């Protein structure tokens, strides 16, 4: 039996060596090498029994994660992947489990094998759908047979392909073992055998039809002469180069008309054994596909969709990395990260994309971001949130290198512009919402606040901001706070002041860089005014009588 031979051969392989760059995951993988997961260990390629959640988390819209997930899952509606993208992991090992699978899929051959498998499974589903719709029995049964055959092929070819692949992830190794067991099972072997025999006997069906007037007769074929060929032979001597085809394009629908159905019914009478066997197959194997294979087909798309999404950014040489994650260590950093949703948009516009770094060390917990409008402050806040959320899915994140906090909950509060008409109501709403956040937040949470209290006076904003910051600091939360109140940037040793930058040579040009720097209260608007000759001295000169 081929399955077992493959397994025996695989056990003789030398231990796999790992690249130095992946030192962080290597130790985990070595532990994995120690014992092969048994076939029954396999539940899901996403790890454990993956949770799903139909509705997107509240912060999705604020962080533009809805755009990202929409883009990632485009073209994969049939897999209903979004529920997987709505659920964060809270265990560092569960994240690493997914990193391992991603790393196996970095091998383009493995990736292509999975794509190939997915295509076959998609074809199988189409065949089943078609079988469902068809009216005439022998058509329905034939499509059903096709689907079963496609399934067997898909599974067998996948195992064949994976048996040669160097798989390191717990997920794929468990799946491969499961696959071997499945394919080696008596049920599967019997299924495959039946399918092969049915195709053999169907392809041995040859018949002749005679049409004259309104009557069609059918009998088994004898050794009749191919008359088209004979006519062609007779005129061979005149053949001179290519001529136009006179073949008519007769539309051919899969669905039979009643004449074609009558022909097949007559053919079935000529070949009763073949058609009885087809009938029996249809009756006996309503659920030929294994539920875990079907589950794998869906769940592995989580990885494929993310990988294909990341590839878009490869052309712009934007890096992705496997972040180190910890639910306890609050020293975090990232290098050359970027807002994915914005980057996707800029890519289509062929506009340059600016990367940013961040770092929290020692007692530092809170980034307070100030600086000129439209200078990349909100983008920074979104990026920070996206990175943490994507890391919690077990996905590679934008950046060269990252160490991120595995939160228990993520909260965002972004100002909604449409409410400006009712200022007092808005401030009240803001405070209620922030209060709720701080009530629910634990020391394991991450909070991102963007432009809060803009709807009140500076004095109020300073007071309220200070109060909120105190609560955040008391909870030891990791937070990002985008604000126009410079004073918030230097409240304690927990705050880190970041400012968005302009080009020193041309103050009108924003660099979209957000860097560690004390808030200096200098407004970008002045620089632009100067450019327009409206700065004090210029304007005075211009206004001179």
């Amino acid at each position, binding site marked *: 039996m081929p399955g077992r031979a493959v397994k025996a051969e695989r056990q003789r392989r030398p231990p796999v060596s790992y690249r130095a760059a992946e030192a962080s995951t290597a130790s985990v993988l070595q532990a994995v090498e120690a014992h092969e997961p048994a076939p029954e260990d396999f539940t899901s390629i996403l790890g454990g029994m993956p949770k799903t959640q139909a509705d997107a988390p509240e912060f999705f819209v604020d962080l533009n994660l809805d755009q990202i997930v929409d883009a990632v899952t485009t073209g994969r509606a049939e897999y209903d992947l979004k529920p997987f993208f709505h659920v964060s992991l809270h265990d560092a090992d569960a994240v690493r489990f997914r990193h391992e699978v991603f790393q196996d899929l970095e091998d383009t051959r493995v990736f292509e094998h999975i794509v190939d498998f997915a295509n076959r499974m998609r074809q199988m589903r189409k065949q089943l759908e078609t079988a469902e719709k068809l009216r005439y029995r022998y058509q329905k049964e034939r499509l059903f047979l096709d689907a079963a055959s496609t399934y067997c092929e898909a599974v067998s070819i996948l195992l064949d392909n994976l048996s040669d692949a160097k798989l390191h992830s717990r997920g794929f190794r468990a799946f491969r073992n499961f696959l071997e067991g499945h394919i080696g099972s008596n049920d599967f072997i019997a299924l495959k055998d039946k399918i092969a025999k049915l195709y053999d006997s169907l392809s041995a069906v040859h018949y*002749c039809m*005679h049409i004259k007037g309104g009557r069609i007769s059918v009998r088994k074929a004898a050794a009749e002469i191919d008359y088209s060929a004979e006519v*062609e032979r*007779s*005129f061979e001597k*005149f053949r*001179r*180069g290519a*001529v136009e085809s006179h073949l008519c394009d007769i539309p051919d629908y899969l669905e039979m008309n*009643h004449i074609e159905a009558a022909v097949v019914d007559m053919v079935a009478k000529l070949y009763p054994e073949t058609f009885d066997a087809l009938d029996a197959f249809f009756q006996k194997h309503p659920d030929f596909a294994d539920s875990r294979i079907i589950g794998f087909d869906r769940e592995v798309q989580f990885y494929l969709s993310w990988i294909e999404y990341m590839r878009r950014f490869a052309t712009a040489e934007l890096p992705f990395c496997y972040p180190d994650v910890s639910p306890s260590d609050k020293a975090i950093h990232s290098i050359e990260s970027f807002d994915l949703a914005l980057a996707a948009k800029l890519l289509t516009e062929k506009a340059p994309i600016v990367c940013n770094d961040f770092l929290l060390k020692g007692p530092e917990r809170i980034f307070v971001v100030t600086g000129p409008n439209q200078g990349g402050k909100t983008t920074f806040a979104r990026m920070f949130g996206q990175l943490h959320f994507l890391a919690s899915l077990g996905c590679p994140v934008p950046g060269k290198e990252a160490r991120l906090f595995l939160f228990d909950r993520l909260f965002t509060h972004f100002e909604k512009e449409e409410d400006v008409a009712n200022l007092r109501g808005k401030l009240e709403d803001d405070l209620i919402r922030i209060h709720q956040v701080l009530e629910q937040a634990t020391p394991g949470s991450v909070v991102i606040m963007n432009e809060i209290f803009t709807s009140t006076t500076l004095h109020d904003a300073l007071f309220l901001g200070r109060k909120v910051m105190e609560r955040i600091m008391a909870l030891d939360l990791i937070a990002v706070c985008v604000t126009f109140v410079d004073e918030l940037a230097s409240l304690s040793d927990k705050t880190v002041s970041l400012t968005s930058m302009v080009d020193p040579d041309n103050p009108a040009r924003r660099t979209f860089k957000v860097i560690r720097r004390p808030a200096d209260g200098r407004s970008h608007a002045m620089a632009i005014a100067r450019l327009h000759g409206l700065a004090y001295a210029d304007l005075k000169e211009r206004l001179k009588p």
Partner: protein
Amino acid sequence: MKPLLMYRDRDFDAEAALPWNAEMLVQDLGLIAVFEAMAGKDDLLRDVAKRATLCPLSEPEAILYRQAVLKDCLENPAVVRDLYDLAVKVLGGEKKIGGFFLRYPGSILSRSVQVLEFFVGALRRLRVVADTRSENFASEGFRTFFRVLREELSDDYFAEIQGHLNELKLRDGVLLSAELGHGNKSTNLVLRKPKETERSWWRRLFAERPPTFSYTLHPRDEAGARALSELQDRGINLVANALAQSNDHILSFFRQLRAELAFYVACLNLRERLTEMHEPICFPVPEPLGSRRHSFSELYDIGLALNMDRKAVGNDADADGKCLVVITGANQGGKSTFLRSIGLAQLMLQAGMFVPAVAFQASIFSQVVTHFKREEDVTMRSGKLDEELLRMSEIADRLEPGAIVLFNESFAATNEREGSEIAIQIVDALVEQGYTVFFVTHLYEFAHGLFDRKMPQALFLRAERGADGTRTFRLKEGEPLQTSFGKDLYDRIFKDPYIQGTLQTSLNGGSHERGTAPDRHNSAP
């Protein structure tokens, strides 16, 4: 089956792309008149004549092959014209058979049967010609053509086709073989016929060989009737296509035959015109590329003769071993005419035609290229010299080794010194690279500078002038002279014998304006 009357081994391509300089050649060499004479009133003849003339052959053998076929044609003009007319009628007749636009296999098949019956008639007539007339033909081309007709269109073959014609009327219904395809639908439908062909074979088959099942349409089942005829259409699709394509092939055979015969009929037309004018023709002797043979006697400009509808003056020359021929001399003295006759004869030689001369022998050239002075600047964008230089540069881009380049008064759109300098540099380059150059010029410095070099491979011809100043339009070998004979022209046009008689001596060799043709002075008082 191919006619192979133009080439020993391939079809004549009546739609071949013309060379890049075709329009230039037509204009510079005056080919329109020749094409008109060849065409008569038949546009196809004009088109074929043009293509054959402008796409020259490059092997002496290929030329001799065509010459031989043409000689047969000159001997048997009536037979050749009859064959051409037959091909023309077949192509016209096929178009008249209707139903061309129907797009169902059934209708395609029945039209194809009709068309084929029509073709069979024409093929039988071809056979008759081959049977009765082939003895009068001596060329390899025609002998092979007639032999192939006799062999391929045997009586047995006609019987075989007749069998198909009867069978494909489908009087006994349609027998199709099939297999189960996608969704168990009947697929690979192939039209069949039983091994033993006899009347009502199907009835016997289906009656005597069980098991057979039948389905009969309800008389009011219209959808079923459509489905059944569609199934039948599916089955005869291939054979309808095969037959229609075979017809296309036969049609294309006749189209090819028509195109190849068109060339010879066009040559017959031309020969008849020239005979009426008592102009001589001869079959030229082609020499291999690069052999530097170029000698002829009584070579005349066929275009000029056709335009004037009378005999044109011929020239003799022996330019064997020469690769540079410089022609100088009197204005309106026949220089351009001579240059054109060189180009025309070369094209006709390399088309496998007869040439307008009493004798003609020449090497083959890879290309015939002309660079003639243009009367006007067509583009209006660049000056006249610019235009000429640009054209020369284009020519240089396209020139292939072994070409002959004919210059007519080129590079004269500037002063003589500069023009001469340009011309001499261009000619030197061409000659040193192995090209053959004919150059009509009145640039004295250029022409005489070349003459002084005493190059063995250069020949200098001069437009001849009688002692009384009249032109003979004949060229003779001779040293380039300082002046052209514009004065003579002036004199003749102004018809003042007194001035002519008294001033001739002083003006001869004097400072008479160089070469600018005073032929427009006839409008002066």
